């Protein structure tokens, strides 16, 4: 605690000062609070760099991802192949950059889906109680108890061709993957948010707001939700990691992207049997996932501080 006290003081001091300066817009205010969270800023920069790298990297490093070169198999990092090669002599840097697009996009999108659905279900259940709560919790329990594998096979079977026809092969697969991964990961979020709501709605400050005549929406948006976001942000980071790995599992079921697209999870899986022969193969994919998770977490922490100024640093 001691270490963070000055930060708290300066924060309060500045907040007080800003309170006196009405010309500053809320958005700018939020940005200032976010900026003070140094790790969050650094993380945001790294995350942005990663995003840019996967977006434009393939153009700057124009090596074909499926360029098979049997003379350069399982090579450790070297100038010709900065991240080494896999067992078919394919360049890992090119593959990481290309696959990263999908891994990052799927990871982030699936996280957002799971958080939105989870928070919505949890918040509605937690605030309304009664039969709505019972129905929503039934839905949560149902999703928790569904065996994923057969369900995925059913989904592939029922929807793949339909979606392919409507939004094209890539878009269809993306929507399907995000929906499936997000759709299977919102339940813990819902339960957590609901539990927080049950507790928070009885807390003094919410009662105070209620006594002052705040509407339910206002109670939720201004008082309960910001305080319930802690576990949501943690769930978010865990879900990103989970989604990146899950995407690679899906491609084994023929649901995800074709297996020749080297997403990070896929690279990690392919590399695992070569762990004692060519450790570099797994290293970079693992590190990329770790870095993505780490930065998203700190950005999440920063965002919460933005929403909730009372935050301890």
């Amino acid at each position, binding site marked *: 605690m001691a270490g963070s006290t000055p930060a708290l003081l300066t924060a309060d001091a500045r907040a007080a000062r800003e309170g006196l300066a009405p010309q500053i817009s809320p958005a700018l205010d939020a940005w200032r609070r976010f900026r003070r969270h140094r790790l969050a800023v650094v993380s945001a920069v790294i995350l942005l760099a990663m995003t840019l790298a996967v977006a434009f990297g393939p153009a700057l490093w124009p090596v074909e991802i*499926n*360029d*098979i070169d*049997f003379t350069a*198999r*399982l090579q450790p990092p070297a100038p010709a192949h900065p991240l080494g090669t896999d*067992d*078919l002599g394919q360049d890992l840097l090119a593959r990481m950059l290309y696959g990263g697009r999908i891994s990052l996009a799927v990871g982030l999108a699936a996280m957002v889906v799971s958080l939105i659905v989870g928070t919505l279900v949890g918040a509605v259940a937690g605030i309304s109680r009664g039969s709505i709560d019972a129905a929503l919790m039934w839905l949560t329990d149902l999703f928790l108890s569904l065996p994923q594998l057969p369900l995925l*096979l059913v989904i592939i*079977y029922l929807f793949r061709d339909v979606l392919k026809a409507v939004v094209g092969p890539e878009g269809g697969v993306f929507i399907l993957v995000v929906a499936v991964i997000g759709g299977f990961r919102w339940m813990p979020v819902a339960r957590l948010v609901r539990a927080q709501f049950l507790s928070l709605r009885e807390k003094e400050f919410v009662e105070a707001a209620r006594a002052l005549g705040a509407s339910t929406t206002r109670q939720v948006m201004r008082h309960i939700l910001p305080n319930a976001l802690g576990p949501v942000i943690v769930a978010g980071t865990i879900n990103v990691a989970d989604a990146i790995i899950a995407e690679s599992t899906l*491609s*084994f*079921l*023929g649901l995800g992207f*074709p*297996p*020749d697209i080297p997403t990070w999870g896929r690279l990690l899986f*392919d590399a695992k*049997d*070569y762990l*004692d*022969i060519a450790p570099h193969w797994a290293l970079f994919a693992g590190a990329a996932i770790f870095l993505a998770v780490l930065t998203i977490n700190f950005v999440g922490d920063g965002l919460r501080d933005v929403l909730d100024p009372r935050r301890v640093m």
Partner: protein
Amino acid sequence: MQEQTLRALIAQVKDGTMSRRAFTRQMVALGLTAPMAWLMLNHAGVAAAAAKFEYKPTKAGGGGPLKMLFWQAPTLLNPHFAVGTKDQEAARIFYEPLAGWDAEGNLTAFLAAELPSTENGGLAKDGMSVTWKLKQGVKWHDGQPFTAEDVVFNWEYAADPATACVTVATYKDIKAEKLDDYTVKVTFKKPTPFWPDPFVGVRGMLIPKHLFADYKGAKSRDAPGNLKPVGTGPFKFVDFKPGDLVTGERNPDYHVKNRPYFDTIEMKGGGDAVSAARAVLQTGEYDYAWNLQVEDEILKKLEDGGKGQVVIVEGGSIEHIQLNFTDPWTEIDGEKASIKTKHPTLSDKAVRDALNLLVDRGSVEKYIYGRTGVATANFLNNPPRFCSKATRWEFNVDKANQILDAAGWKRGSDGVREKDGKKLKYVYQTSINEPRQKTQAIVKQACQKAGIDVELKSVTSSVYFSSDVGNPDTYTHFYCDLQMYTTTMTEPDPALFMNQFASWEVATKDNKWQGRDITRWRNEEYDKAYRDAEGELDPVKRAALFIKMNELVVGDVAVIPVVYRPNVRAVESKLKLSLSGWDNDMYLVSDWYRETS
């Protein structure tokens, strides 16, 4: 290869200028099976050579435990219900057939006293019956004697459709009768050239009548013996946990002297192939690991562990690419790839020839399968040194380009060749399996260079190999242009294998895609050869017909063979064993022993 040539070769074996082994290998090279070669030699009266395997221990027992890893775990122990090889292997520890196929493809007696032949009167001249003499003094594990009654019962049991045995096809068209306590006569409905099928090998394991008699037909699933086998084999049952573990102990009354060497046997299931190989080759925790479909690169590294080595068993299977002869993108009467259609581009022989040139089998062998997959041009297995000139494989992008240019397929603006508005764009599907995806990548890259666009698709195995009528992703629907999988040829009789190109076997909606001709390739000459082979009693003439069929298929590029895949096992250094590609691995587990030094 003509009938005369075959006869000349057999004559050479007879007078000793050619070894049995060389003959067998050459027949295998031509797409026949080793048991088929045995049948020819047997018919010609060439005496069978003794099995090569030498059993050294001088007494039974004393070998301690034998620990085996099966990454697919056995789920049931009744040989008549054995769904996969894993179940057959587990059952084979406890049960035995009358005879089995050894490593060279020779028929060897287990519960038979001798093999039937024309000389000893066991084989009828008209091919209508076989008479088996049973070994005397054999006891079931519970002490009951093994007699002809048991053999006849197995026929009754398996032939009854209500029992729903997977062995039913072997037994439904025969009749077994007891001549005396130790003689059984098998009568066929029609002249049967390949007689060593009932009571032989994988589908010939015998279960005791006294324990199963009350559980024939619909009650079969309630038999306690399904989970607690009582057989005649070298090991007695101890425990079975479905999907996990099978354990057995030495049978002190085993009917072969001084066997088995090991005191207990354990078959642990589950996990994956690579870690199974690690447990044998790197840590030595286990003695034997089954069916290692793993990149050779990894196996070689693991062998450096020094605790064991990889054993390659001849026999086996072929990884091949099938070409669709019907149009998978047009639907007629609710059925795609209907035989009423013709594939818009693959029906052009030039395109098929070009594709054949674009499969870099050499690299697939060298960099993916290694010892576990040998490049091949024949649909049926063949080591390259025996390759006939007619079916040599070649990887040549330039030549493929020339063929396509000559046939009028011009590159479009996107680099993809087309003619009359039809583009060379294919969907290439296979099951999800590491080496297969790598092979797909290699083929795709070569095709790209030749102006053929290939989209890769992979389907999870449990769907791909299912017989689900409603699912378009199964391999029998073949709703795409190219597909690749391994067809296993552990069947001793090639007839079962070769019917997959007979025109009456075409997989269609009408037969719920249960037909075996998946490429929808049809050829009258082939059909005729197959029909002729069905009733041909002279094994040499029959063999010549099969060779011809094989050449027809490969010559017309109905399939593109990729690699021949022998069976791969990991074995602890001191464990000595005999494995056969034509029978279960456990067929001679009684003779496995550990060298002491």
